[in-house]
């Protein structure tokens, strides 16, 4: 058994002993209903506490009605009705010997008239990156009010039985808007030199400490580097964190990075290497005498243990890691490392849903955020189940059905499990996807599902086997030539004979080689096109990515990519010299040439290309379903129903298995 003694040694923060070094960092769950927490919160946090986490910092709770981003996302801490709910949560968490702090949050200019019918407040009239709306510059009265509001919520936290409070001084919210030279262009005593820029924060610290006294812990979550031109850097951070520590009122520092403008690095997607910003904590730990917590993309117990052992931090923060597997700490402590479902930083369930103001969950863990509602219970009548297709949907369905006591067999036509996800999993930057497959494989082997590889299931076979239920998860079909494969002239491309075209899937799988000059016809502006572009660029090809119209009508950004992943992916393309032409569609192709059409003016342009790579959507494979649907109980899930994302595949796999 791997020894994780350091990770599971207790730590004393401001007189409060935490049983281990794992902290669940605050993250918005979106479970609130008309501005107040719900039972869903209670169950969610209790599940994490039961899982063995040492300290939970509860999600950002709004101190002020003035700036609250979106009334249906953040708990409204300024309302008196909230206190009973908070108490419910602390009781649930304390039941499992875990500590819980409340995070106090003031959005500043991260708040818009669109959601709240009032502009955001900020240090200066600098439009923010989240909404681009010009905020109100806070005057002395407004500042005093904000400080008071922090203190008021701290008071509520004390009454509700929290072990401490954490001040949200990070991610470009109000205090950071004062602290950051990029945002703060004031000339009064709250602007200019560092001391002035820190003043607002210092006032909050003093006010809150005064309210909570010495029995409660006071911590700060702060950025250690803004990663924007004109923002503060790690060197500055060393200075101001040291000053905070010197006040003697701050018990610990919980470090993250970035601000609104560099947001993607605060919730980094999978192409960002593991533990990217631990060095910040390590450096700051050298200049302060209080415990320092390192966070961001720490998803592995051994790594976490090493961080503590090596003296880089006193504690590690995880949000997505525990969202994905609440039992992470218990499993790690028991040495059951393989059983841990590791976060792969896909952001599909968490950040993206948050962006769309949906309650969060997890791609790999459909139970996340649905504790109590979703759970695996023994089936009343064990039944004979055939699962066809060993992709994510199929594996999840098989595993869950088996756990419920059904007699399950899993069939996969290819020689290995994983399905279509294995294709992107080969691409640099997307390889974390392997982890999702690894866990699903581990899950089905540990519950003992018989797997039949290299087995193409036919209608006859099914009729011979006489299963009670068939779960069809056989996936989708690749579109190789939109001209031929796609109905409807709208999407068609006229491809002259002899033109070198290849489907993105084939390129990624290495089935198809491309020429030096590549044009990618990305019909949907999906991840597929973007990673294909990067993949080819990595090989030194000259790549042009043609995307029709990056903005979906109903949403802020491309629908199947959360903004964090999207932004970092675009950054990668830029740094690798990929040419991106948007508002154009590929219409015709001939050897060496491709014609693209402007979606607005409908004018054509001509591009030179040795190869045209087609990145189109996929189609469901319905043959088997049509053949059997009237005769037996057959249910389609995942791409076999409609080609979408992994999160839908796993969700449907789980769901269908709990329903039979």
């Amino acid at each position, binding site marked *: 058994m791997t020894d994780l003694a350091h990770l599971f040694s207790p730590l004393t923060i401001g007189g409060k002993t935490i049983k281990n070094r794992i902290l669940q960092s605050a993250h918005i769950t979106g479970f609130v209903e008309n501005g107040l927490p719900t039972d869903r919160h209670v169950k969610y946090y209790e599940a994490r506490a039961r899982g063995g986490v040492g300290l939970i910092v509860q999600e950002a709770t709004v101190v002020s009605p003035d700036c609250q981003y979106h009334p249906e996302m953040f708990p409204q801490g300024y309302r008196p009705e909230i206190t009973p709910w908070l108490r419910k949560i602390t009781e649930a968490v304390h039941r499992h010997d875990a500590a819980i702090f409340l995070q106090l949050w003031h959005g500043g200019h991260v708040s818009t008239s669109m959601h709240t019918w009032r502009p955001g407040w900020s240090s200066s009239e600098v439009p923010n990156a989240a909404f681009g709306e010009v905020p109100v510059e806070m005057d002395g009265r407004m500042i005093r009010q904000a400080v008071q509001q922090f203190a008021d919520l701290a008071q509520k936290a004390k009454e509700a039985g929290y072990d401490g409070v954490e001040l949200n001084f990070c991610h470009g919210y109000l205090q950071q808007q004062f602290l950051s030279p990029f945002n703060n262009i004031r000339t009064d005593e709250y602007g200019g030199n560092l001391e002035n820029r820190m003043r607002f924060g210092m006032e909050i610290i003093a006010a809150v400490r005064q309210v909570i006294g010495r029995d409660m812990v006071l911590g700060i979550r702060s950025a250690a580097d803004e990663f924007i031109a004109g923002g503060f850097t790690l060197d500055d951070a060393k200075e101001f964190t040291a000053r905070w520590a010197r006040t003697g009122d701050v018990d610990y520092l919980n470090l993250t990075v970035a601000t609104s403008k560099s947001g993607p690095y605060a919730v980094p997607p999978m192409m960002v290497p593991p533990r990217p910003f631990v060095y910040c904590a390590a450096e700051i730990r050298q200049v302060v005498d209080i415990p320092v917590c390192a966070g961001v993309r720490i998803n*592995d*117990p051994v790594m976490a243990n090493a961080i503590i052992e090596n003296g880089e931090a006193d504690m590690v923060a995880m949000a997505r890691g525990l969202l994905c597997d609440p039992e992470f700490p218990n499993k790690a402590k028991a040495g059951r490392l393989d059983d841990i479902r590791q976060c792969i930083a896909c952001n599909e369930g968490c950040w993206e849903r948050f962006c769309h103001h949906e309650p969060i969950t997890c791609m790999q863990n459909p139970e996340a955020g649905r504790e109590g509602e979703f759970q695996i219970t023994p089936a009343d009548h064990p039944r004979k189940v055939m699962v066809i297709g060993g992709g994510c949907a199929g594996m999840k369905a098989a595993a869950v059905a088996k756990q419920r006591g059904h007699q399950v067999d899993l069939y996969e036509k290819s020689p290995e499990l994983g399905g279509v996800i294995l294709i992107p999993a080969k691409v640099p930057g997307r390889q974390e996807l392997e982890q999702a497959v690894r866990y699903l494989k581990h899950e089905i082997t540990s519950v003992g599902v018989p797997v039949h590889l290299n087995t193409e299931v036919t209608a006859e076979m099914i009729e011979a086997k006489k299963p009670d239920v068939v779960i069809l998860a056989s996936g989708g079909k690749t579109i190789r030539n939109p001209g031929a494969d796609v109905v409807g002239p709208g999407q068609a491309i006229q491809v002259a004979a002899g033109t070198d075209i290849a489907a993105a899937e084939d390129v990624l799988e290495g089935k198809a080689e491309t020429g030096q000059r590549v044009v990618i016809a990305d019909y949907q502006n999906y991840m597929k096109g973007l990673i294909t572009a990067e993949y080819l660029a990595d090989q030194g090809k000259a790549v042009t990515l043609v995307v029709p119209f990056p903005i979906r009508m109903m949403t802020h950004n491309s629908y199947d990519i959360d903004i964090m992943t999207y932004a970092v992916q675009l950054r990668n393309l830029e740094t690798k010299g990929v040419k991106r032409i948007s508002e154009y569609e590929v219409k015709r192709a001939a050897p060496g040439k491709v014609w693209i059409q402007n979606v607005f003016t409908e004018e054509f342009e001509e591009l030179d290309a040795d190869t045209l790579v087609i990145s189109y959507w996929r189609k469901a494979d319905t043959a088997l379903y049509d053949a059997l649907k009237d005769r037996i109980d057959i249910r389609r899930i995942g791409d076999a129903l409609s080609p979408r994302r992994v999160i839908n595949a796993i969700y449907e796999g789980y769901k269908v298995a709990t329903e039979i």
Partner: protein
Amino acid sequence: MNKIIWVYIEVVENEIVETSLEALSEGHRLAESAAAHLAAVMIGNDTDRLAETVLQHGAATLYAIETKSADPPSPAGHAAALAGLIRDHGPDVLLFGGTLFGNDLAVYLAAELQTGLAKNCDKLAFSEKGILEQHRLCFENKVHTIEVTPQARPQMATIEPGIVKIGKASKPYRPGGPEIIRTQAAASADVDAGAAIHLGFIPADPRTIDISDASIIVAGGNAAKDVNHFAPVRELADCLGAAVAGSRAAVDNGCIGRDRQIGQSGKTVAPDLMISCGISGAHAHTIGMKGSKTIIAINSDKNAPIHKMADLGVVGDMHGILPELIKRLKTFRTTGTQDGLSDPKMDGR
């Protein structure tokens, strides 16, 4: 009069040990704080080539002791060689990189010079009285002590490896440009002064060694689906006297134990030679092996990221290549057409 600070530069296989540069940087910081004169001292048989690096890191003077001997240096031998020089020039401070050899040498030298020594310091500073304050952890790292050597000179300290940032000197330190003083080593430097005679080295057994200590590693990955597929990896390791390791996939496939797993959920390794077989090179794995000096990657996918970090990217199926490679290595042994091969990293520093 200005203080004189000396830093001993440890040379292994005609390269400067990183820890010595850390010591030099610390010395440089110290010198600037007290406007002291920083000198480096080095023992080797090809010191000229290394002189430049030393001077870039802020040494104003380099004392280069030429030895002809090829056989590995003994701490006692070096101590004897240095003692004379030090007595002549009488530096106030003498620093070493806290490697195994550096620490040993320091102790022998302290014994020779009858002066005090503080090992594995993490910080050095002059007190207002101009005495060197040596910060170090003791009592099993539960106490931070500040030690001083008030009378005896030089004040000796070794620097804990891996914690000092190596920084190049901003400006050429000495107005007149750096000076290099060459001296022939006293006879005693080559023949052992201590009565213990060096007989040779016993390399660690790669099969039992902790992979983070291994100097050659052969690692297998997802391409080996089961133990039988993995067998050639082990055999290759045998031919090279290397330690066997693997990616997480190799562990999941039951090919190796978790104690031999490289990566974020395994161990961090830094061998001189890493031969990676059928590993694609995901971050989760490479985070554990990026310290490898030379990397040979064998992978059938020519676009696998592992190739981008390899000194030699071999595009092909390991199952085909390894047997061939093993065959050749074995004939090598028998025909012995490899004269003058040095044991990789066998002089134990």
